[in-house]
Structures are given as structure tokens and as C-alpha cells.
């Protein structure tokens, strides 16, 4: 074990082109899917929390169900849609990073929406009572609310990013783990492990943890600043 870790660190420090490609594909995918999911999920969550319409409870339950959707099910649906017999075959999304991003957005958006719905439902009533009482415009109310919730939004983003970087099922089905194209860290770890190449698998595992740590540190530092101001 110790030997494997030593070798893994050695590999990380060498400029291994395949390793670097896996990392860059992973980051490209994670940033894209988590940001798109944030841009879709926050307005959706705000709508679920603030709008009043019949069937709202049902929609919230549906969203929570989607939140727990197993990645392989999402992968399967996307595979069928993108494959040669699927309705979206002309978009040629199968075995591409874009296809993987779409699958992940489907997985992460409900999580972002549910989180947003939860924190807004607790924070918004007091904010809205005050802004409405002061007769502030809708636009001003919205920007004020977003500013008030920036820490919550950031932590929601982090949850989305973590889900994206750790996810295997959907990306391996839609992306196919093609070397130098759609192979991301999680799928590569699986492949290396099944091939018995524990050194490479472990070095990717360590990098994965380090990226996760780094993102958490950035968010922590940022949130401390937000809390101080």
C-alpha cells in the first residue's frame, strides 16, 4: 500500500500526458455541468419556493424524487436519447464531453433546485416582508435576496460540483471513457483498477481528493469573508 502511494505521488509529479488529459477533461466537464446546473437550478428553486400555484407540492416532491435519481438511470436515458436510434442522434452527443455534461446537468439541477427551495423558504419570508413593506421594486428585491443568499448559493454550487466530480455511472455510459477524449478521473480509476494498475488508479484518487479539498478551502475562505462583511 505504502509503495503504491509513493509511486502514485511520483506519477503525479511527472508530466504524464495521459494523466494530464484526464484531469483537464474532468475539470472541463465538472465546471460546465455544475455551472449550468446552478444557472438552471437556482431560478427553478426560487420558483418552487416563492411562486404560488396549484400542484406546487407535487412539483416539489417530483423534484426531490429526481434528486435521488440513480446516475445509471440518467445515463441510460441519455444513452437512449443520444444513440443511433434515439431522437437526439443528429446532435451527435454520444461519447462526447457535451453529452456527459448534459447527463450531469440532469442529475445536478434537481439537487441545486431543492437546496435553493429549502434555504429560500426559510429566508425569503422575512426579507420579502421587509422589502415589500418598504415598497422596493421587484428587481431590487431580487438582487437584495440574491446578495443575502450568496453563501447559501455558493455552498449549493459546491454540492453540485462535488456530485459532478465524484459521479461515474452516467458519465461512463454517455461518455464511454474513451482515452484522450471522454475519460474522466472516476472512469479512469475504474478502468485502471480492473486492469490491476493500482498506481495510476491511486494517483488519480489522490488528485481527486486534493481537488475536492482545494475547492472546499476556497469556498470556506470565501464564506468567512462573506460572513464578516
Amino acid at each position, binding site marked *: 500500500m505504502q509503495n503504491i502511494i509513493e509511486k502514485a505521488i511520483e506519477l503525479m509529479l511527472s508530466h504524464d500526458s495521459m494523466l494530464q488529459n484526464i484531469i483537464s477533461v474532468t475539470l472541463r466537464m465538472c465546471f460546465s455541468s455544475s455551472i449550468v446546473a446552478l444557472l438552471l437550478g437556482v431560478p427553478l428553486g426560487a420558483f418552487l419556493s416563492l411562486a404560488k400555484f396549484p400542484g406546487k407540492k407535487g412539483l416539489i416532491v417530483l423534484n426531490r424524487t429526481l434528486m435521488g435519481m440513480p446516475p445509471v438511470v440518467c445515463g441510460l436515458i441519455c444513452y437512449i436519447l443520444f444513440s443511433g436510434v434515439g431522437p437526439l442522434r443528429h446532435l451527435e452527443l454520444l461519447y462526447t464531453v457535451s453529452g456527459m455534461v448534459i447527463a450531469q446537468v440532469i442529475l445536478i439541477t434537481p439537487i441545486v433546485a431543492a437546496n435553493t427551495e429549502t434555504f429560500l423558504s426559510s429566508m425569503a419570508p*422575512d*426579507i*420579502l*416582508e*421587509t*422589502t*415589500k*413593506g*418598504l*415598497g*422596493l421594486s421587484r428587481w*431590487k428585491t431580487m438582487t*437584495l435576496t440574491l*446578495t*443575502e443568499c450568496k453563501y447559501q448559493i455558493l455552498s449549493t454550487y459546491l454540492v453540485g460540483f462535488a456530485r459532478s466530480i465524484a459521479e461515474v455511472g452516467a458519465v461512463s455510459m454517455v461518455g464511454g471513457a474513451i482515452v484522450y477524449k471522454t475519460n474522466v478521473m472516476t472512469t479512469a480509476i475504474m478502468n485502471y483498477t480492473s486492469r490491476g494498475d493500482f498506481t495510476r488508479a491511486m494517483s488519480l484518487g489522490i488528485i481527486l481528493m486534493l481537488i475536492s479539498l482545494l475547492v472546499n478551502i476556497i469556498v470556506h475562505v470565501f464564506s468567512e469573508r*462573506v460572513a*464578516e*462583511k
Partner: protein
Amino acid sequence: MIVKNLKKMYGEKTVLNINEFSFEPGKIYAIIGANGSGKSTFLKVIAGTLKPSEKPEVILENKTLAYMPQKNYAFKTTVLKNVMLTAKNKAEDLNLAKEYLSEMKIDHLMNQNASKLSGGETARMALCRIFLSGSDIILLDEPTAAMDIESTLLSEALIKKYKKKTNATIIMVTHSVNQARRLADEVIFMKDGKILESGSSEEILNSPTKPETKEFLEFFSSEI
């Protein structure tokens, strides 16, 4: 301002039922009544922050209205920026904001994060904020409930001064009969969502006609 048909029900329970009431400019109205008598609901329905059970009529006659809730939100920015939320003319309103803050003796907290203020300080800030809106009709829900005696008296002075300066209508809920005595021109006594009795402050507080009002006021005869 005339309000008509203010009704709010929760299930079968009617918590607000007011047919018609008219408020005059240049007067301070104190709404008194026991917990749960519908005082806050009354203000919220007028302000439009609570959806009533029937369509109400609030005739504003081109006047502007602002409402200060029982629970005030302090935005995570400076006290001054919180007060300046409704500012239209930046330079002019900045002076006014500072003036109000110093009258409420929180001008030294001007550049502090408002979300770190104490309850009483938040209420003092909220009072400055509501007056900065410059509205013709001001609704205040227990504005001094969280304040100490000094701040309470400062608030009362500010309320009076604002009324004098702008000829505004001020409608405030209070649990202090003595505060009503000090401030109000008119007193409204509420019970079970209805206005049981209303009239000039002297009339209602000194010689109420309804036995319920008498009973309510007797409780407060020992108030400090």
C-alpha cells in the same frame, strides 16, 4: 386613506373582519388589544404583505404607504446602506439618513454590519429606514417592543417629529397603553379581529364605553 372589507380567515377561524375604517392625515393612530386580536393581521392586509380571504379595498388617494413589520430584516451590509434602501435622491437622503440615525442614537453604528446589531438596535435602524421612505402613510407594528426606555422615548420623539414635518398618517400597534397616551391622537381597540371601539385617545383611554375595553385597560393600570 379609507380601507374597506378587510377579512382574513385561517380555516374556519376569522382573525380579521373589518368593514370600513378611515384614517386621516396628520394623525397618529394607536392600535391596542390582546395577543392574537388581529392587530398585525390588520396592518399586513393594508400593506398587502398578507393575502386576505376576500378582496379588500384600500383607497390611498395617490398617497404612498410604508409598513414596518414586527420582525425586521437587517440586510448583511452597513446600517447606513440598510437605511438608504429606499433613497431616491442620494445626496439629500444621505443627510436625512444620518439625521435620523443620530436622533435614534445609532449614528456611531452607521458603518457596521447591520446583521450584527442587537434586537433593539435593529428596531431603531428599521425605524430610521421606514421614515427615510418619506411615505405619507406609515404602518408600524410594535416598533418599540424590543427597545429600552431611552430608545422608546427617542422613537416616540421621532414619530411625532415626522408626523409634524410631513403631515403623515401614522398607524402603530402598541402593547403599552402609556405609549398610546403619550403619542396617539386616536386609539383603536381590537378584539377577535374586529374594531370594538375607536375614537380620540382621551375618549377611549379615559372613558371607554365597551366593557371589554374597560377590562383590557384595567389590566394596564399598574403598567410602568
